[in-house]
């Protein structure tokens, strides 16, 4: 075999290896979707969305409280994590060489790597123990803490992608540095930041561990921020480890709703981003 033939062979092998890896990477997702959908649809009905959990032994009932609970927990988390994350991301991008920025960047990466159960225990200490009360607020804080580093780093990365020429254009028209950032640089990065935020929402919506010690669970419908609250993840967990066949089916349905929620978040992010980009570029 001559040299060129060997090179062509090598190339073919590498291409096949890459393709194979992609397939292997996709297999878990495909199986998860397949099982969740095929098992979940069996217990999925209108009652599932509108009814509260039925007492043990009684058939039927639904996850209405858990769906509301998850939306509320994610909402509380996002309400403080998005502003804090975006603004600290702006700071790190604007003053990248300062000590505080270096520290903040390192802290964000570390926080991102802290196991979620540890975040749950920490929030238990600061927001549950002092009040002797599990609450939706505590759960929201735990989720928010998980969200801050993701939003911070996404914002920073996207701001760095905005061409410096845009900022200079604003400065040359007599804008102050802060004004240029708020009116030109940040809006230019907005589509990407929104994507990052929505993906972070999807990520925290699927968290269980931080909620176990904070939001706890609630068998009843509650929208009070100071009371324990149900969530899809904790409810799925509770139902899945129960000995009841009926609850197992409902756990699958809960998992399906959760996966759909996360998936629609991703789709929404893509749609919103594309829409905004089209508005900005006119294409």
């Amino acid at each position, binding site marked *: 075999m001559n040299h060129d033939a060997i090179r062509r062979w090598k190339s073919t092998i590498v291409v096949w290896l890459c393709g194979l890896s992609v397939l292997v990477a996709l297999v878990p997702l495909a199986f998860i979707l397949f099982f969740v959908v095929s098992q979940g649809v069996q217990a999925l009905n209108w009652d599932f969305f509108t009814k509260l959990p039925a007492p043990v032994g009684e058939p039927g009932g639904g996850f209405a409280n858990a769906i509301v609970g998850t939306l509320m927990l994610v909402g509380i988390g996002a309400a403080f994590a998005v502003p804090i994350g975006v603004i600290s991301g702006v700071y790190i991008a604007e003053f990248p*060489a300062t000590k505080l920025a270096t520290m903040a960047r390192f802290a964000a990466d570390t926080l991102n790597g802290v196991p979620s159960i540890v975040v749950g225990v920490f929030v238990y200490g600061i927001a549950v123990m002092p009040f002797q009360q599990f609450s939706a607020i505590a759960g929201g804080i735990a989720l928010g803490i998980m969200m801050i580093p993701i939003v911070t780093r996404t914002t920073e990365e996207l701001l760095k992608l905005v*061409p410096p*020429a*845009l*900022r*200079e*254009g*604003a*400065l*040359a*028209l*007599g*804008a*102050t540095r802060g*004004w240029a950032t708020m*009116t*030109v640089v940040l*809006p*230019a990065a907005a589509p990407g930041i929104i994507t990052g935020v929505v993906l972070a929402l999807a990520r925290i919506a699927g968290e269980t561990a931080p909620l176990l010690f904070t939001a706890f669970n609630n068998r009843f419908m509650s929208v009070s921020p100071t009371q324990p609250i149900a969530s899809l993840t904790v409810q799925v967990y509770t139902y899945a480890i129960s000995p009841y066949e009926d609850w197992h089916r409902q756990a699958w349905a809960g998992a399906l709703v959760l996966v759909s929620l996360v998936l629609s978040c991703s789709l929404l992010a893509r749609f919103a981003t594309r829409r905004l980009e089209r*508005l*900005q*570029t*006119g*294409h």
Partner: protein
Amino acid sequence: MPTPMPVMTTTAPAPSRPLTTVVPPARALPTEVPQTAIDVDRLSFFYGQKQALFDITAKLPAKLVTAFIGPSGCGKSTFLRTMNRMNDVVPGTRITGKLIVDGRDIYGPGVDPVALRREVGMVFQKSNPFPKSIFENIAYGVRLNRLAADRSAMNDVVEESLRSAALWDEVKDRLHDSALALSGGQQQRLCIARALAIKPKILLMDEPASALDPIATQRIEELIYELRSKFTIVIVTHNMQQAARVSDMTALFWLGKLVEFDRTEKIFTNPAAKLTEDYVTGRFG
């Protein structure tokens, strides 16, 4: 590099608008001594330890076009950016000497660079329209400087600026479309319109046509020619023919030093320095 000729030839297909020869023969300079717009006195500039400009002294005349030419890295852009203190944004820079605009040293105490930039506008090498509508691109600086009292005044300013930049007819029906949908040449003219809208006294242009095709370049040059009586224009270019076509005065920079600064006609036909002669005849650079 061919010998510079103050004529532009093009073989491109005829555009919708008739092309006039870009620039009429060199304009006769006014007989009286022109006023000085920018008075530079022994200006040196440093990026950290590295000195980028050495003892520049020059008087740039008002309401004329001054071109800076020279090879890449010779300091011409750096010099331009000292005039609206755009280099302030770059960390670790230092400047000595005086740069007097409108009778005051802009590096003196108490000078606000933000206020200065309202007097000294700038157009960049690569067009940098904001990702907003055409209208909003112009309105941005107008609002910032409170130059329009109400909506109708704003509409007037936008139209006037776009007309001054010879862009109005092309965009008047789509003012609220994204500026990024414009062609490269249109984007650059939008950036010029944006700079004109805040009514600066001086307009700095940093290689405004270097990223454009010949037709778009020609339109920018025509525009500079039309604007020359209203503003003091300082243009950096690495295209010597362009300097010959659009400017009244030309300065040659070389390794951070000002080699020669004189009437454009003289620089291109009878330069005093050997270096200038070698450069403009394309013997190097």
